């Protein structure tokens, strides 16, 4: 009997020690601080989304810290620049996990970059909430420790094209996309609706990433007689296309995708940008929710960072809220295992800037509700439409 008790005691001690070791093994947490890491493009053209997303993270973190932190621990935010270069994204993730010892990750950069770091994230097991570029590969198949807030590019395009097709029955369609993974996703979504609704596509263009002059492309569009046009550019490309259409004196019904739905674009498009349709899962800044978000940001951000806010700040804020909330629910001794379990239990978390966020067992994608918006040049804003 004594022998059995001794063996049981030894086993118990062993289990306790291994649990202690596991607790100690989760990095990025001290008695006073929790480290959250992030890697974004902060330089080069994609900085438009990377800087904005990081600002969204900062707002949520500042809000939590102002309220006393996570169970008394202040959140330290470590941000790395990858310049939108995949090799640097991998280096950046290694740096924030191995050197800065991040407890959890937010971000991470663009779709290609997130996909590239996925093996690293899976291997390390660090709780991660991705918010910048939601693509299916990130949640199909579901990875234990990786959660994605947003909506898929493909679903977004399907929603937009379906809406435009319903409003413009029997019209001729035109499409132009970028020659990369982003463009392929846009085209796949478009083709899905074209097949289902048998749309009459009279122009289909494909431009090289970095192209700045769209005069011949838009002339081809005009020549084709397209009446509804899906502009598959991101920022500068869509501006250039709209200006060309204005120069060519045509005004088709135009749809753009959410990466290009940032307000400064409307100013640059001028009157040519009036009435453009867009799809998104975050609220427009012109609405009550958008205004409230900006008000909140004013109190938490330095003045210089306010100008960097755009829709990606909202997605970043929402992701950070979900992560902070999950860590918070783990109580005084949060671990990776608990944080992942709590992220999985996320149910209808309200952020005020998009539909409530939920995950579930085996569900790592929040699948946000989409809405259609239309631009208004006079107020340089997007407004929801029915």
């Amino acid at each position, binding site marked *: 009997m004594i022998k059995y008790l001794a063996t049981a005691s030894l086993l118990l001690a062993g289990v306790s020690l291994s649990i202690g070791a596991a607790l100690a093994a989760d990095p990025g947490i001290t008695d006073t601080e929790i480290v959250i890491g992030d890697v974004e493009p902060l*330089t080069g053209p994609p900085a*438009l989304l990377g800087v904005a997303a990081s600002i969204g993270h900062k707002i949520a973190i500042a809000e939590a810290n102002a309220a006393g932190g996570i169970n008394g621990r202040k959140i330290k935010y470590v941000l790395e620049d990858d310049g939108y270069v995949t090799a640097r994204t991998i280096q950046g993730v290694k740096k924030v996990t191995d050197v800065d010892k991040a407890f959890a990750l937010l971000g991470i950069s663009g779709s290609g970059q997130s996909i590239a770091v996925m093996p690293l994230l899976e291997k390390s097991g660090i709780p991660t909430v991705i918010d910048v570029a939601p693509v299916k590969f990130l949640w199909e198949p579901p990875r234990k420790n990786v959660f994605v807030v947003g909506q898929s590019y493909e679903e977004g395009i399907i929603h937009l094209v379906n809406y435009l097709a319903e409003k413009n029955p029997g019209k001729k369609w035109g499409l132009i996309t970028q020659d990369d993974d982003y463009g392929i996703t846009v085209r796949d979504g478009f083709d899905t609706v074209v097949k289902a609704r048998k749309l009459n596509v009279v122009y289909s263009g494909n431009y090289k990433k970095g192209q700045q002059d769209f*005069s*011949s492309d838009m002339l081809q569009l005009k020549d084709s007689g397209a009446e509804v046009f899906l502009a598959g550019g991101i920022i500068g490309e869509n501006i250039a296309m709209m200006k060309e259409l*204005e*120069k060519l004196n045509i005004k088709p019904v135009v749809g753009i995708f959410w990466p290009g739905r940032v307000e400064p674009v409307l100013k640059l498009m001028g009157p040519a940008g009036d009435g453009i349709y867009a799809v998104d899962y975050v609220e427009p800044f012109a609405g009550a929710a958008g205004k409230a978000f900006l008000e909140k940001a004013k109190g938490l951000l330095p003045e210089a960072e306010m100008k960097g806010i755009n829709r990606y700040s909202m997605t970043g804020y929402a992701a950070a809220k979900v992560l902070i909330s999950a860590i918070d629910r783990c109580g005084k001794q949060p671990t990776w295992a608990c944080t992942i379990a709590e992220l999985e239990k996320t149910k209808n978390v309200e952020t005020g800037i998009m539909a409530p966020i939920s995950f579930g067992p085996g569900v790592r994608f929040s699948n946000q509700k989409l809405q259609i918006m239309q631009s208004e040049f006079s107020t340089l804003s997007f407004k929801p439409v029915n």
Partner: protein
Amino acid sequence: MQYFMQLLISGLAIGAIYGLIAMGFAVIYKSTGLVNFAQGEMTMITAYIAWTISTTVSGNVFVVALGAIVAAVVLGLVIERVVMRPMLGEPVFATVMVTIGLAVILRSSINFIWDAYPHGLDVGFGRTIVRIGSIGVRTGQIAVIATLLLLLAAIWAFFRYSKIGVAMRAVAADDRTALLMGISATRVHALAWAASSVIAGIGGVFFALSYDLSPAMFQLGLKAFPATILGGLDAVLGSGLGGLLIGITENLAGGYLGSGMKEVAGFAMIIVVLMVRPFGIFGERDIERV
């Protein structure tokens, strides 16, 4: 015919911008024997400075133009004095690598000094659309074509008749002999960098007028470089004309062969031309390749 004319005019307009930047490449190469891989970035910086002047000092077109020219001169001189002059006498490969490093620094500076958002350069000129029949063209596009042609004439006269122009040609031909003749090579180099910065900067400002400013603007350098190769790396005037040829070819290919061919067409033309004339259409035969 209208379709062709619209493609041609748009091609000339974007080609004129490529041409101006290509001339910037050629001025430096002709005077220093160096390919400046930071040309697109210098073009972008000048355009951003012009935008800053227009939003903070005055939106008057003359104030902005003068300010941008002065800024471009200063930019060219500072780069020559601080970065390039210490590299005099060093291997060409090392010097070229320095210009690549400089390009990365200038490119990143946009986000540090300005931001990643696109901006419009509004000087009350250049955005109005002029219609000739059903063909539309912006005043800024007409102006950039006219500016390129004027500059081509002015630079031809400068190299042909001015003392400094002849000195620059002498340094380009043989800097040691030029030195023996009392010509200061360093002064000529400084002048070349300043002139190159101004000429390319003008292209950048016109691009910002017709399109917009964004951190992606440095890519204009990548489009203008083939124009320089096509016209001749040591041919300033040839580079300007090379830009026009690239612009027209791109647009015609894009308009008749499809969007995907637009970016390829210019390079395809270069391959063909270089197979026949390895030194470019207007270049001299003894170019040192880097």
